[in-house]
């Protein structure tokens, strides 16, 4: 039964992708209907999988000597993430019915969305490192194809290629880790790596651990790879919601959480993870403070919140990070889709041209405020509980300076969130934009997500017992709702964070006139260049191109020179052979 469900969760979206690919633009209703149908079926299958979760291998297909067995394990971590991917993915698809109405090439759009959802489910359910890498690369391919969906816009194409190249760097880390594991343990199975990690030599295990950290940082757009996510904003907005909330960026955090028990004793690993999370959260929160593009501000906030999750894993709070991942998936999907509704009708992404839209689109305004409150971490929305849980485990386990940094980020988060809300929905109208409220399909997905934002924290008890009972290596402490409430409301950490959030709000209220328009030139320059990392990216690609054009000169196409090259190589081999034999 579990095996069939696992097959369905991956198979339904992929079947949908194949079917959608065959449809024509002449039947847009058919395309929308099929996409919604397949994605909802996948969402239902993924929800049905949750009660069947266990630590046991549910599918085991022999694939021969070189690949190991293709296994699928539906444990708590995997079923939660596949449910997030499929359910939030299906809500993004429902939203697309309104958002993408009248667009061309919907078959390409929906086929890649469904392929993306299926690949993400496969990635988290896979119990074989090599096939995990395969699914990992399929998600990278889909993100590229969807970010560049408007392929006549050069910025969209550039953003897609940037995402593809940077996540490939991470893919190399994952592949290197997987191959090293195979070379040492003789197996690609995730469970073998988790159970036999102590038997591996420290250096080898460190190689695997830092390879996986590289992969996770690139996929989750963490420092120093945080530059690709803001440029991915050229995608249609439902795709941004999909990438930020349901699929793609969660994969990196999942990878760290999955292998935390194997790597926690590698010297320097947890500290590196903590630092990566802290630095990403700090610098992207800074960039979000002055962003003027609505989607970019949301993108920076995603990187910042992912920084929280990575930081939580670094200080040992695997449960806290996964709980925040769940909360974040819900409220960030809500924020992105609400922003999409605004952008769709206003026709611009520049927040400086918006203002006072709240009266014209009350529904979108209300759900956006809900999402913003959750992002800022105010009680009693889901973002509050999970963020406080992270900060609390950070205070008890991690270094104090990292904790102080994260509390500061909480204040900055409150500031930029309210700046965003204020600029778009309140204040005075800076331009007379003719907008209308969201359509019905948009309202369905926004309403469901708003409901989720209000309630998913109530799931903490079943979520905790699910993870605890099915993850034998993770040593997750039990926690139920009342304990959580007591713990959160009696901890001083909570009040420190809340005070910081209040301070952020207060500062915003005082400077709201200045914050809406221009910002100081140095802040502008710093954030536009992503703190110099865009410059670094540019340098690296220029070096590569320069090296290519230098080496190009050796390709003369003249036969005699090629023969000289062949003879030279032969001579070198001969010398090496003679020298090594002696």
């Amino acid at each position, binding site marked *: 039964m579990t095996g069939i469900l696992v097959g369905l969760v991956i198979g339904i979206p992929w079947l949908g992708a194949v079917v959608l690919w065959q449809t024509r633009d002449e039947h847009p209703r058919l395309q929308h209907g099929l996409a919604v149908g397949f994605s909802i079926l996948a969402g239902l299958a993924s929800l049905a999988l949750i009660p069947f979760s266990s630590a046991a291998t549910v599918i085991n297909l022999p694939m021969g000597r070189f690949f190991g067995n293709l296994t699928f394990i539906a444990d708590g971590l995997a079923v939660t993430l596949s449910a997030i991917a499929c359910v939030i993915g299906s809500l993004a698809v429902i939203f697309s019915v309104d958002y993408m109405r009248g667009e061309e090439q919907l078959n390409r759009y929906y086929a890649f969305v469904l392929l993306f959802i299926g690949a993400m489910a496969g990635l988290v359910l896979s119990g074989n490192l090599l096939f995990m890498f395969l699914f990992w690369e399929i998600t990278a391919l889909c993100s590229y194809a969807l970010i560049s969906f408007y392929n006549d816009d050069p910025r969209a194409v550039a953003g897609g290629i940037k995402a593809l190249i940077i996540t490939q760097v991470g893919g190399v880390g994952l592949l290197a880790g997987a191959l090293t594991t195979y070379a040492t343990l003789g197996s690609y199975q995730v469970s073998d790596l988790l159970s036999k990690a102590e038997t591996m030599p420290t250096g080898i295990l460190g190689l695997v651990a830092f390879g996986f950290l590289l992969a996770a940082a690139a996929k989750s757009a963490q420092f120093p790879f945080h530059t690709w996510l803001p440029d991915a904003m050229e995608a249609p907005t439902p795709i941004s919601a999909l990438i930020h909330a349901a699929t793609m960026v969660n994969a990196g955090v999942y990878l760290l959480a999955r292998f935390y028990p194997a790597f926690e004793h590698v010297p320097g690993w947890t500290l590196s993870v903590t630092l990566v999370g802290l630095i990403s959260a700090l610098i992207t929160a800074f960039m979000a403070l002055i962003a003027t593009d609505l989607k970019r501000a949301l993108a920076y906030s995603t990187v910042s919140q992912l920084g929280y999750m990575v930081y939580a894993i670094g200080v040992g709070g695997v449960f806290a990070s996964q709980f925040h991942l769940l909360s974040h998936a819900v409220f960030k999907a809500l924020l992105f889709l609400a922003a999409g509704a605004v952008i769709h009708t206003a026709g611009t992404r520049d927040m400086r041209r918006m203002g006072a839209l709240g009266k014209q689109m009350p529904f979108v305004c209300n759900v956006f405020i809900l999402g913003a409150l959750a992002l800022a971490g105010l009680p009693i929305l889901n973002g509050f509980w999970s963020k406080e849980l992270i900060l609390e485990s950070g205070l008890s386990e991690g270094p104090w300076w990292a904790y102080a940094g994260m509390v500061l980020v909480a204040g900055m988060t409150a500031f930029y969130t309210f700046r965003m809300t204020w600029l778009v929905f309140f204040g005075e109208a800076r331009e007379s934009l003719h907008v209308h409220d969201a359509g019905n399909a948009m309202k369905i997905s926004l309403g469901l997500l708003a409901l989720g934002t209000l309630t998913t924290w109530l799931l903490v008890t079943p979520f905790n017992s699910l993870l605890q009972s099915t993850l034998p290596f993770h040593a997750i402490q039990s926690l139920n709702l009342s304990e959580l409430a007591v713990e959160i409301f009696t901890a001083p950490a909570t009040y420190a964070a809340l005070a910081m959030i209040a301070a952020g709000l207060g500062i915003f209220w005082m400077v709201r006139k200045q914050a809406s328009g221009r910002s100081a030139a140095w802040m502008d320059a710093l954030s536009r260049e992503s703190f110099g990392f865009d410059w670094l990216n540019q340098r690296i690609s220029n070096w590569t191109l320069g090296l290519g054009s230098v080496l190009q000169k050796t390709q003369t196409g003249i036969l005699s020179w090629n023969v*000289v090259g062949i003879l030279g190589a032969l001579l070198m081999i001969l010398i090496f052979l003679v020298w090594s034999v002696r």
Partner: protein
Amino acid sequence: MTLSPLNILLFGVVLLLAVGFYGLLITRNLIKIVLVLQILVKAAMLALVLAGKASGNLGLGQSVAATVIVADTIVAVVALALAVQVRRRTGTLDVAKISTLRG
């Protein structure tokens, strides 16, 4: 180094290789290039038979060499046909001149 049959054969392989590479280095005529490539392939064939003999697997070496003969003949035929066409269309067989006729 004793003059065992294997060593004589090895000497032959190296000699043929040297002739072939020397030819490739100095030749500019397309038909001559096809000829020296044939010489190089003959060296490779001889080396295959030699390796078969040395490893006690003569049958395998000979059968691979026979396969190479077939493939190599096809290569020679096609290359010569191309050379004829090149001569007809460009009026020259000099590879240096042909390579400047890009377009």
